């Protein structure tokens, strides 16, 4: 193979890597999104009761059926107990000591377009690197053809502040709006799908979310449509002592395709903040959904003070034959992560994939993984999990693979790698495997390794400093997952990997 023929192709990837290093170097501080926006907020009174649930529903201008749906969830929740089976250690959460609704005052009268949105809010997203303007976002990598366009729905505390590229998406028949708007504008669609993937009573946190979710995103891709751009939601928790409960619903009709990105940050605070989200994805015949997350909630300080408690239920239901879903997550933030994006492979020949990087540094704890529930014949699933632990962190992969009797000739492949930095952290792998037919096969491979001093010395002897060396080695370890991300996200993710491991060596 001649060198000349192939180098330009490498070059695109090279650009990504260089950019990463630059970004990392540019980020002097530790958690770079730790600032707060000073903005007048409207809060509902602290605590949770039926009145608060009604108030949230009223604030969103919801129809009666939605209010009742929430109340049913709330009543259910009262009878449930918080799950404690995860390998997570945290003090009791006082659910009455939280605000369940916070909204910038300037959003009182709903802005009709982005031009009317409070400049302070726009500036917040600008500062986060997510300009809410209809222009090429996250301009492309050197050598890439055209800058990639991404439509953004920005959620600030409890409300969506704006969605970009709506008109253009509408031309393709794609609906992309906040969930509160969808409840008002497309009640039939919401009614048909909401709670059908993650039922109200699914688990403690999902039920809580069903009662109090304030906003989130709604995506509908009509039959046969390939969404003309990437869609993304950007969540920002700003207000103190405020829970964030967003709800995302994605419906991909027959033969459609969408790639969806989700990013999250929060200010530095020394108290913990609760985040309990639900994401439901419905994938019909021959449709494909890619869902990527870069989660960078404030992880707490070195001593483990503060940080987000992240209890998230994400599930995709491959309802039609040959439906495909792919979850990719880069979890670097949060004090506590409790999250298992799952795939229900109901349709015959449907496919589920899960690619995950979970980094826990300092006192962070992560208990994360996936569930692949094979119900249809000839279904396939693939799990690639990369767990990185540093400091005193505990990182657990928890994964379930179930092959039902009807799911004949199905396959799962699981690869689960853990990397330890230092000797005070822990990595755990907890696989649950159930195979209830004779023709299906499940493969599970797991490795645990340490960041190798020889590798770091080798890098340093070539001129890289210690943090650059760690970032390079760890990014190499995560390569397979990083490659599964859309390119713009891959850069951000590589940078994040480096930042979240700062101070983990030496």
């Amino acid at each position, binding site marked *: 193979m001649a*060198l*000349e023929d192939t180098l330009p192709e490498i070059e695109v990837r090279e650009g990504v890597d260089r950019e990463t290093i630059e970004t990392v170097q540019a980020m002097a501080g530790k958690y770079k999104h730790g600032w707060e926006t000073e903005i007048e907020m409207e809060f509902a009174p602290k605590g949770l009761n039926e009145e608060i649930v009604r108030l949230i529903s009223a604030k969103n201008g919801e129809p009666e059926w939605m209010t009742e749906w929430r109340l049913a969830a709330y009543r259910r929740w009262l009878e449930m107990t918080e799950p404690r089976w995860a390998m997570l250690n945290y003090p009791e959460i006082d659910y009455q000591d939280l605000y369940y609704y916070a909204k910038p005052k300037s959003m009182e009268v709903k802005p009709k377009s982005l031009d009317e949105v409070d400049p302070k809010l726009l500036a917040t997203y600008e500062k986060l690197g997510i300009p809410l303007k209809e222009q090429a976002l996250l301009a492309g990598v050197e050598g890439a053809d055209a800058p990639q366009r991404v439509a953004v729905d920005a959620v600030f505390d409890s409300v969506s502040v704006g969605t970009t590229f709506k008109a253009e998406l509408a031309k393709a028949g794609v609906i992309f709006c906040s969930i509160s708007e969808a409840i008002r504008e497309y009640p039939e669609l919401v009614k048909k799908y909401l709670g059908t993937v993650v039922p109200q009573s699914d688990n403690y946190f999902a039920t809580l979310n069903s009662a109090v979710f304030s906003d989130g995103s709604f995506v509908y891709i009509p039959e046969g449509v390939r969404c003309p751009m990437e869609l993304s939601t950007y969540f920002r928790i700003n207000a103190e002592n405020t829970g964030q409960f967003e709800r995302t619903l994605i419906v991909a009709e027959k033969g459609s395709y969408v790639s969806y990105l989700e990013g999250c940050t929060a200010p530095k605070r020394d108290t913990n903040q609760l985040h309990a989200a639900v994401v439901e994805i419905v994938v019909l015949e021959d449709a494909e959904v890619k869902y990527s997350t870069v989660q960078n909630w404030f992880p707490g300080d070195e001593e483990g003070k503060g940080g987000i408690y992240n209890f998230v239920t994400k599930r995709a239901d491959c309802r039609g034959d040959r439906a495909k879903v792919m979850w990719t997550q880069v979890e670097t933030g949060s004090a506590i992560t409790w999250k298992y994006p799952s795939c229900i492979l109901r349709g015959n020949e449907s496919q589920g994939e899960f690619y995950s990087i979970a980094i826990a540094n300092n006192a962070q704890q992560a208990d994360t993984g996936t569930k692949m529930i094979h119900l249809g014949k000839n279904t396939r699933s693939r799990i690639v999990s990369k767990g990185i632990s540093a400091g005193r962190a505990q990182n657990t992969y928890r994964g379930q693979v179930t092959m039902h009797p009807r799911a004949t000739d199905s396959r799962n492949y699981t690869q689960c790698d853990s990397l330890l930095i230092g000797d005070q952290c822990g990595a755990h792998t907890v696989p649950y495997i159930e195979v209830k037919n004779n023709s299906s096969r499940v493969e599970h491979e797991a490795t645990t390794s340490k960041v190798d001093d020889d590798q770091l010395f080798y890098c340093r002897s070539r001129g890289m400093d210690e943090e650059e060396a760690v970032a390079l080695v760890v990014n*190499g370890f995560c390569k397979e997952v990083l490659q599964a991300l859309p390119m713009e996200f891959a850069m951000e993710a590589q940078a994040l990997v480096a930042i979240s491991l700062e101070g983990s060596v030496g």
Partner: protein
Amino acid sequence: MLKINNLHVKLEEEEKVILRGVDLEVEAGKVHAIMGPNGSGKSTLSYVLSGRDGYEVTDGSATLEGEELLEMEPEERAAAGLFLAFQYPVEIPGVGNMTFLRTALNAQRKARGEEEISAGDFLKLVREKAASLKIDADMMKRPVNVGFSGGEKKRNEILQMALLEPKMCILDETDSGLDVDAMKLVSEGVNALRDEGRAFLVITHYQRLLDHIRPDVVHIMANGRIVKTGGPELALEVEKNGYADILSEVEA
């Protein structure tokens, strides 16, 4: 260029002394070779000079162009112009060889206050250097040293050296495990870099390499010391008679 003075080194974790007073001076533009039996401390010397953990310098000093080497971090030594071609190059899974090279080069340039190299210039540079070492595009794409043959690993070390253009190059048994053709490539790579402002310290067991890279000075190391220094003829003597004669002569 490189000045080593009475260098004493022991292992950090145990009371094992490895270097017992090494004295060595390599002038700019010169090639020095170090030969010596296995276990005499040659690799240790190269590691200590480049700043690997696990060793304790109990006495002596080492300077590169007058700068105290032993005080510096490994990356500072690299930026100052020191390079070690490893006896056992390290594998880094998932990190493309090209990425590694570019990260290293830019890190050094940055440390020296120079601008980062542009994508285009970097490509041109790598292409040219890689071609002369017969390193193909596939090898540039693969993860650093992973699945490389012994010869490929050594050629890759020389590629790094050619790209980073260090002032002081230490080659630790770069010839071991090479077939005749690879040996030629590697030597040509080294010879191409020979220049007034650059010095080499070539650690080897074999005259074979020194046939290609003609040294100005040859040192024999034994038991943690340089025990004999001479011209190229010293290497020929070792080739013919082994170390036994020299060692007994020194001990006598």
